[in-house]
Structure formats: C-alpha cells, structure tokens
C-alpha cells in the first residue's frame, strides 16, 4: 500500500495551517500598528501611560462600580495625586476621541469591549 502521497498531502495541509500567519503576512503585510491621536495640550493621563495601557479596562470597571454602586464621584490619581470626576463621557472622552483613540487600538488588538453598547462619544462615533 502506497500511502505516502496521502501523508505528504496531510503534512502540507498541516504546514499550511501552522504557517498561516506567515503566508498571510507575506500576502497582506504586517499591518501598521495604530497611530493614536493624542489630546492636544495635555501632557499626562490620569495615571502613567504604561499603567493606562495595561490597566485602563480595570480602571473603567472600578470606576463604574464606584460611581453606580457606591455613589463615589471622584477619583484621585495614584500617580499624580490630582482628582478627576468619575465619568467615561465627561472625563475620558473629554480628552480622547473614541474613533481616533479607543477604537484604533481595539481594532488592532481585535478587542470588542461592550462599553459601547451603552456609552457613546458625544463627539461622534
């Protein structure tokens, strides 16, 4: 029984599958990392940039519980000590534009936060 061609076919399929990102990258390129539009005239976010990159989602989660459930309206920056009103719309979106900031990274990282099911950017989606 000569089953070598079947095995080789299987191998080729396997190789094609595991190298999918490679040949897909060869066809479509690496893709550009998002270029974010940073708010003008601002030098810092609520916490350090590194902290915000990694933990903004948890901060928002905390905020929503603080505001909605505990009726706490102010947040004091651990990094800088200044206070902010707890509000996605009034605070975050006051500086950042959803389409130019949030969406870009989320699209790049293929993250679909359900924040936007309810919240929106008054400056336009």
């Amino acid at each position, binding site marked *: 029984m000569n089953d070598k061609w079947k095995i080789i076919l299987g191998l080729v399929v396997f190789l094609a599958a595991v190298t999918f*990102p490679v040949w897909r990258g060869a066809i479509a390129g690496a893709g550009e*990392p998002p270029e974010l539009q940073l708010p003008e005239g601002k030098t810092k976010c609520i916490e350090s940039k590194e902290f915000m990159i990694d933990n903004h989602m948890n901060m928002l989660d905390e905020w929503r519980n603080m505001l909605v459930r505990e009726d706490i309206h102010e947040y004091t920056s651990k990094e800088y000590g200044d206070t902010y009103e707890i509000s996605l719309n009034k605070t975050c979106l006051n500086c950042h534009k959803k389409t130019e900031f949030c969406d870009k990274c989320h699209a790049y990282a293929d993250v679909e936060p359900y924040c936007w099911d309810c919240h929106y950017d008054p400056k336009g989606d």
Partner: protein
Amino acid sequence: MKVIIGLIAVSVLFLAGYGLSGAAPYLFGVIIPYAAFALFLAGFVYRVLAWAKVPVPFRITTTCGGHKTHDWLPRSKYDNPSNAVETFIRMLLEVLCFRSLLKNTKTQPGDDNKPVYATEIFLWLGAIVFHYSMLVVLLRHIRLFVQPTPAFVTMIERADGFFQVGVPVFYLTSFGLIAGLVYLLARRLFNPQVRYISLLNDYFPLFLLLGIGISGFWLRYISKADVIAIKELATGLVTFTPSAAILSSISPLFFGHLFLVCVLLMYFPFSKLMHIAGVFLSPTRNMANNNRAVRHINPWNYPVKLHTYEEYEEEFGELMKAVGLPVEKE
C-alpha cells in the same frame, strides 16, 4: 522524583525567560522564537516522513464491530470499515471525538471480588476539554499575528467570550485549558496505576503546558501586558521584519510565557506530543478491513523455506497408500 524534576525544569525555564530576557531581549524575543519555530517545522516534517518511509506490510485493522458480509446481517460501518469512506469517518470520529477513549471502562473488584467494569468517562472528558480548549486558545492567538484579524478568529473570540465576566472579558477556554491540564496532571499523580507508568516524558509536557497556560492567564487577566506592542512584535516576526525597538516595552512575564512556548515548540517533535500526527498514521485504525476482498501488497514480501507436498508425500506416501489415501506418485 520525576514529578519534581519536571516541575523544577519548567520553573527554571520560565525564570530563564522571565529573568534573562531583560539582558538579551533580542535573543528571547526574536532569535529563539525563530529557531524554535524552524526546529518545530523541520522536526515535525522529519518525524512524519520517518514514519511514512516505513512500509505497512500487513493490513492489521483492529475491528471493533461486525464486518461486511451478508447484506442482511447488521454491521458496524465505522468500527469495522470496509472501504475508504467508512475508514475516513472512523478516523474522523477518532480524531475529533476521541471515540476510543469514550469506550473506556474502569476495572474494579465486584461484590464477590471478581472484576466488574465501571463506566469511566472522565479521562475522555478531561482530554476533550483540554484539547479543544487548546485548539481554541491557539486559534485565538492568531489575532496577535495577523493584521487585520481574520473574521473567523473574531467569531471564535465572541463565542468564547460570550459570558460577560470580568475585564478583559473572561474566555471559557482559558478555564477549560487549565482545568483540563490540572485534571490530567491530578490523574497522573493520584491514580496509582497511571502514576506507576508515568515518566518524566509525561510530567514535563504537562507542566510545560500548565506553565504556558498559567502565564498566559496571568498576562491576560492579572498583570496585563501591552497587547499592541506584542502584536507589533508578533506581526513583525511572521513577516520577517521583527522590530527590536518594541521589545523593551513588553513585560518580562510575557517573555517567560514566550520562552516556554518556544521550549514547547522545540520539544514537540521529539516527544510523545507527536501523537497529534501519529494518530493519523495508526495502521490499526486508518485501514479498511477489506483484506479478503482487496489484496494488500507487502513491498518486502520475500520467499521462505517451505515444506512442499512432494517432500510431504516422500515422507508419508507409503503410509497414505496403506490406508487408501490418494497420492500423486502411485
């Protein structure tokens, strides 16, 4: 002892990735991943071709049900396939549903101490949960390597993250992967029979996969990593334009995770993990039981020394004649 060596080995490897990547980010972020992936591909192909090179001299199907005979008798098409299509389905059931494991039983002493056979589905369940979670986790990782993320990956992510728990949203397979591995490990440790047959070769990959699973879990849910930078690195790697600059902005935990993955890739072709390919080649499963209808060819079939009828009659001819048995030479 084997357990401890396995655990220590994986811990040391993780710490190497975690601790040393700062000193040599390019090595851990670019060179080793490339080397590991190349070794994985080459080793995998080498191993499969090495198997393919060896002929299958006989058709030794394990038949697990009635064969094809009179068409009025019931038969088991997919446990005793008689043609290529039925064999294909048998293999699908085996590969996709772990059919043989589903038959598993556990022998235990009965009321009179004679053996009885209990239904035992937990090995099957653990294996299914682990393997499918692993598959989904791997597919989900495509989002980090391909820009834009393919639609099928997004769909998988949506289904996997259906339940809105925590931020970032909790994936069922994150839990499935680790739970499956913990079960398989616990079984190895606490089932005396399985513990007795286990080798370091069994513990090491389990710990390695657990290390990868837990560090990945940690990266996603606990100490977050800069996904954008990681994706930039990953897409750079797969398009052979790795960016060295980005390496410094990624947390060392990620390098611990990545290094364990590289170790797994390198270890894979030289270990029992090759069962992923081997299952397709198993001669007792991937052949139809139609040997009486279609002759199977053995490429190295060679003549052997026989005892011919002539030699037989030479020895017994007279005796045969004496009792009236017909002979060639009267």
